[in-house]
């Protein structure tokens, strides 16, 4: 290993350069010490100044001298070989104890990973920029400085107002009952029970809907401490799917100037779904204009489409094997 190193690097000069660096550092620190101590006591003011300046100059000279020395040595040290793509870290691969410490292979792996990560992050940011979520009104075309000013008007609403809006919605739909609670501070949490079909947990921030979870009518919506369980998802695939759709809908449709309209139409959608058609029956028809069409239970989630697909696949593989059989015989 020493042979390899000596080709590119002069070891003796290297040691000298290190000591030169140490000397430089100590002389620099002496300069600062001198500045810190200030003028020493002498009989006259003039004498004091003179002694200080002389001392300061001496120190600066020594810094200069050490720096020159270091520069001279650094030329002697020579440049590390640059033919290796990973520069100095490439030398790790020459380490004979590589089998014991797989540092070099790990390093390469990490390098690959970070490259890949950068690439994917670039792709993702490109995609996300295309479909920005319109959570606030003035996201586009307005400078970032102005944005925070517009938000507080709709974000900071008195709890009384939120209660009013919710109770008005509650009275609008006889099939749906809304239970409002504030277990964690001023943010309201709603437990919406729809007929005997499903329960929806809605986490609000003022009048913005932050999070929503749809669960089955017979599922437990309370955590062990008696509060609403806003984290765990439904055990059933249908309601997991509905939760996904509801979340997509509430992220996509926002009117920051009129948050109550958003809340009302969000609450309307399940009721509408319920009255139009039984939730576990076939696809809901005639919903083209409504933005909430994602609410309906997709056939796929009930497993029927998947079943159909599997059957088709089985048929196809059957046909394929028959064909190959036929060809082989032919």
């Amino acid at each position, binding site marked *: 290993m020493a042979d390899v190193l000596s080709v590119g690097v002069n070891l003796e000069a290297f040691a000298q350069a290190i000591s030169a660096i140490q000397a430089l550092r100590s002389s620099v620190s002496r300069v600062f010490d001198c500045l810190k101590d200030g003028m020493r006591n002498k009989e006259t003011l003039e004498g004091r100044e003179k002694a200080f300046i002389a001392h300061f100059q001496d120190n600066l000279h020594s810094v200069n001298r050490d720096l020159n020395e270091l520069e001279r040595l650094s030329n002697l040290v020579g440049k590390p070989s640059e033919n290796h793509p990973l520069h100095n870290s490439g030398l790790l691969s020459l380490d004979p104890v590589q089998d014991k410490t797989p540092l070099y292979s790990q390093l390469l792996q990490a390098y690959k990973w970070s490259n890949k990560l950068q690439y994917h992050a670039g792709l993702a940011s490109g995609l996300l920029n295309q479909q920005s979520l319109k959570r606030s009104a003035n996201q586009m075309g307005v400078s970032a400085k102005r944005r925070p000013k517009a938000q507080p008007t709709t974000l900071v609403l008195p709890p009384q107002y939120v209660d009013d809006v919710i109770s008005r919605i509650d009275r609008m739909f006889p099939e749906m009952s809304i239970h409002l609670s504030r277990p964690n501070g001023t943010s309201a949490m709603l437990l919406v029970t729809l007929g*005997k*079909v499903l329960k929806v947990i809605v986490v609000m921030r003022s009048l913005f809907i932050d999070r929503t979870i749809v669960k*089955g*009518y*017979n599922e437990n919506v309370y955590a062990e401490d008696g509060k609403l369980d806003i984290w765990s998802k*439904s*055990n*059933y*695939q*249908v*309601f997991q799917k509905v939760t996904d759709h509801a979340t997509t809908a509430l992220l996509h449709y926002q009117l920051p100037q009129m948050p109550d309209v958003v809340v009302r139409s969000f609450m309307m959608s399940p009721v509408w779904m319920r009255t139009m058609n*039984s*939730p*576990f*029956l076939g696809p809901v028809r005639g919903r083209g204009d409504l933005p909430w069409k994602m609410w309906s239970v997709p056939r796929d*989630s*009930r*497993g*029927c489409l*998947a*079943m159909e697909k*599997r059957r088709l696949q*089985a048929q196809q593989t059957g046909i394929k094997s028959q064909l190959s059989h036929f060809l082989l015989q032919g």
Partner: protein
Amino acid sequence: MGVTCVSQMPVAEGKSVQQTVELLTRKLEMLGAEKQGTFCVDCETYHTAASTLGSQGQPGKLMYVMHNSEFPLSCFALFEGGPCLVADANFDVLMVKLKGFFQSAKASKIETRGTRYQYCDFLVKLGTVTMGPSARGISVEVEYGPCVVASDCWSLLLEFLQSFLGSHTPGAPAVFGSRHDVVYGPADTMVQYMELFNKIRKQQQVPVAGMR
């Protein structure tokens, strides 16, 4: 629990009970259902003791005491067409004490055992119904978890049943029709099992009578 439909699958022609169950199992696995352990439902028949009948002269009613491995801590006591009582598992001990009023019918124990399968939100239980040492039939139970009202999801259950039972798909169970918009409970499942067991018992008696 969700809405459950219990039905009987007739044994395929020229095949044994075991072979038919295997056929169904293969169909389910082809669909992509996942195996999830076993299940067991058993039923014991009691009839009212002669001493208590006496004066009114009315025929004694049969009472069925059932257990379901899905509800391991419960015991179900049912009258045919009558009420269903859901009690703790130690109800059995109480029945021993009530020997004077209800007597266990001899060799009446009937049970179904088999495998439990999960397919998306559906729970399928294929069981072999046995009475004493002999296998008498096949029970198919399908549960759809997310729904609690039978009328809401009967057509969906039917569609699913058709996918692997084919032409042997049953009609809507009686418990579905009698009540509209009522939450489905474990007792409704047990009533269906009781009806299934009674049907299988009667089926067995007919050929025996014919042979005599």
